[in-house]
């Protein structure tokens, strides 16, 4: 069979391009995986009797002059200048029937490319519903290419488009006769065409009414807080039972392996390396599914643009944009889904700045560490007889993380990402019910993408950590008890050797080699710190029958506790976050920079706290 025909799916933002792409290609789509791109375009295939087609979903553009890196990618592909993605054979342009002016201006640019073209017009139903008329025959005569009206959300007309694509209904567009080359001239031509093909119906009164509430300074803000509370509740609490279920399932598998009479090293690898590695990937799935589901719903329904309008001023103080709010909020549950949701930010630079700030938001994996250290080393007194000192410290840690993250964003925006400031500019899309198929295809695609890209890195790291903490294997039979054997194992491991070797680095922070080991081992997930400390002090805990926190209290002064807390606020010690950062930014550069910045901050913060407190 000959090479597939390659078609670029192009359109201005908010025309329903993604929905159409999902309807056309369904589950056949996959992440493009092109080297050196700032955004991975999705590629889907369509097969018919006589031809194999490949559809590539490119970031939205308004013209052939880019404003962001994402748009540059689309333009480079269309003009044949992209290094990794070869020029497509044809262009499928998506146009919004309700608001075709900008789409026609884009057409006037695309017509000069010399590529065969076809136009799909979305939201024709909305025009009809409001009593308007959209004349696709006249449009065909004006543009010289075939026009296909669809209702993407309901899948109407999609079959016709698919047939047209493979039957070669391609035509070279008529190059519009525009006097002058300015945008004003192009808009004048576009408006003249719109006047011929569109009779707008009555104004959307319902939308105006909804906007009156949703964008109201008081009611809109309250609604926004409500939506965000719901959003946070969903990923923070509702995902928990599913995550617990996964943990229990993995634990039972590990249990089963532990009882197999096989080589002890192999057994340890299967149970503590492979299974717990797989577990630490799969455990993210509930949050990723829920968050992606909610983000797509917010985006497709048209609410996200309104929310961005409301919070833009506040986020602007830190050099971020309105949409940065979602990834930052999501990161309070977990930075992995949080960073994934940064895809809603259309500009690469803004996306990067937001991603760099997310790991500083206090994620749920830090909670067990904070809880252990606070209960062990912070006195149980009250401030002014009302507020618990321990609770105040906890709240302080949350605030410190959030403020530091936002300040990092601000500094990055003023230094590394200086220039090319695009102020807030947004189109308000109409409110609409999302397409269920599109929703499912997107969530499925992103989840699969997480498993295959970030998931494999996380698994690899987990196995590397197993090698460090469980090898060389000690002779368990000589130990007095299982607990004692665990303690000996971790104390004899490579990680312990490394912990002891690099302990001098951490000595100024008040960390002994045990804490250093706990910190190192918690790279798989921060909460591992608790179980590692538990393992190290297991013997003490069992002998004296007191909780771990009491053992820690007898071992370490307050200054060390504060130092550990300060370290965990800043340090990016989570391999999963590093893996997803690598995935979403396209290189190891940004996770490395983030790691360097946060490690420096963590070290300095701990050092300062330790010196002051002791």
């Amino acid at each position, binding site marked *: 069979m000959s090479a597939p025909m390659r078609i670029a799916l192009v359109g201005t933002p908010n025309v329903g391009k993604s929905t159409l792409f999902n309807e056309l290609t369904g589950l056949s789509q996959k992440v493009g995986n092109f080297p050196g791109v700032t955004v991975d375009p999705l590629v889907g295939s369509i097969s018919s009797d006589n031809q194999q087609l490949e559809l590539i979903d490119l970031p939205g553009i308004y013209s052939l002059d880019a*404003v962001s890196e994402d748009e540059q990618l689309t333009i480079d592909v269309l003009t044949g200048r992209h290094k990794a993605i070869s020029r497509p054979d044809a262009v499928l342009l998506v146009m919004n029937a309700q608001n075709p*002016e900008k789409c026609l201006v884009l057409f006037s640019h695309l017509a000069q490319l010399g590529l065969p073209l076809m136009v799909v017009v979305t939201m024709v139903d909305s025009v009809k519903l409001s009593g308007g008329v959209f004349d696709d025959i006249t449009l065909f005569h004006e543009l010289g290419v075939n026009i296909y009206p669809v209702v993407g959300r309901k899948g109407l007309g999609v079959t016709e488009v698919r047939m047209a694509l493979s039957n070669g209904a391609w035509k070279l567009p008529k190059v519009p006769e525009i006097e002058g080359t300015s945008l004003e001239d192009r808009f004048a031509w576009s408006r003249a065409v*719109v006047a011929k093909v569109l009779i707008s119906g009555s*104004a959307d009164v319902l939308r105006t009414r909804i906007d009156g509430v949703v964008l109201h300074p008081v009611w809109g803000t309250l609604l926004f807080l409500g939506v965000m509370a719901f959003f946070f509740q969903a990923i923070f609490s509702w995902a928990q039972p599913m995550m617990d279920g996964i943990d229990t399932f993995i634990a039972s598998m590990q249990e089963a392996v532990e009882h197999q009479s096989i080589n002890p090293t192999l057994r340890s690898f299967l149970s503590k390396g492979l299974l717990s590695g797989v577990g630490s990937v799969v455990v993210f799935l509930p949050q990723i599914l829920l968050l992606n589901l909610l983000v797509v719903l917010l985006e497709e329904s048209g609410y996200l643009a309104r929310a*961005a309008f*409301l919070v833009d*001023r506040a986020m602007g103080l830190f050099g971020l944009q309105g949409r940065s709010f979602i990834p930052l909020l999501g990161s309070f549950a977990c930075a992995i889904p949080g960073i994934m949701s940064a895809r809603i930010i259309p500009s690469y630079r803004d996306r990067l700045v937001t991603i760099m700030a997310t790991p500083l938001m206090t994620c749920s994996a830090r909670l067990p560490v904070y809880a252990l250290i606070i209960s062990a080393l912070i006195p149980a007194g009250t401030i002014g007889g009302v507020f618990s000192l321990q609770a105040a410290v906890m709240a302080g840690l949350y605030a410190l993380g959030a403020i530091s993250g936002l300040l990092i964003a601000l500094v990055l925006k003023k230094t590394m990402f200086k220039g090319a*400031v695009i*102020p807030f500019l947004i189109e308000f899309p109409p409110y609409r019910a999302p397409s269920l198929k599109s929703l499912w295809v997107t969530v499925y695609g992103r989840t699969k993408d997480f498993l295959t890209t970030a998931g494999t890195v996380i698994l690899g790291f987990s196995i590397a950590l197993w090698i460090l903490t469980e090898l060389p294997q000690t002779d368990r039979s000589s130990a007095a008890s299982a607990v004692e054997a665990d303690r000996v194992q971790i104390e004899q491991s490579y990680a312990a050797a490394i912990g002891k070797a690099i302990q001098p680095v951490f000595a100024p922070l008040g960390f002994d080699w045990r804490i250093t080991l706990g910190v190192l081992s918690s790279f798989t997930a921060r909460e591992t710190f608790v179980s590692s400390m538990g393992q190290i002090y297991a013997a003490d805990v069992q002998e004296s029958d007191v909780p771990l926190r009491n053992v820690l209290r007898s071992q370490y002064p307050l200054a060390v506790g504060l130092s550990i807390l300060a370290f965990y606020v800043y340090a990016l010690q989570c391999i999963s976050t590093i893996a997803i950062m690598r995935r979403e930014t396209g290189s190891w550069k940004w996770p490395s920079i983030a790691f360097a910045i946060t490690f420096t901050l963590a070290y300095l913060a701990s050092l300062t706290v330790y010196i002051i407190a002791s």
Partner: protein
Amino acid sequence: MNLESIPVGEFCRILDIQGDVLAVRRTKELGLVHGVVCRVIRKAPFHGPIELAMTLGNIGIRTSEELRIEVEPVQLQRSEAA
């Protein structure tokens, strides 16, 4: 006069857009070109973004040092408005 000084509910005509080259171009690409008449729908508090209604579709925009929009007020009957 500049866009911010147009009260909510009033109409104005775009005369000139100045500032960062990219910001100016994007503003125009969204349809806010010279001569266009639009209506100020609402302003977010604390000098936040401004929502503008044009003939087809609404946009949100935040003016700043990088994006200054010069307009002239227009008296329109409601029936003429989009």
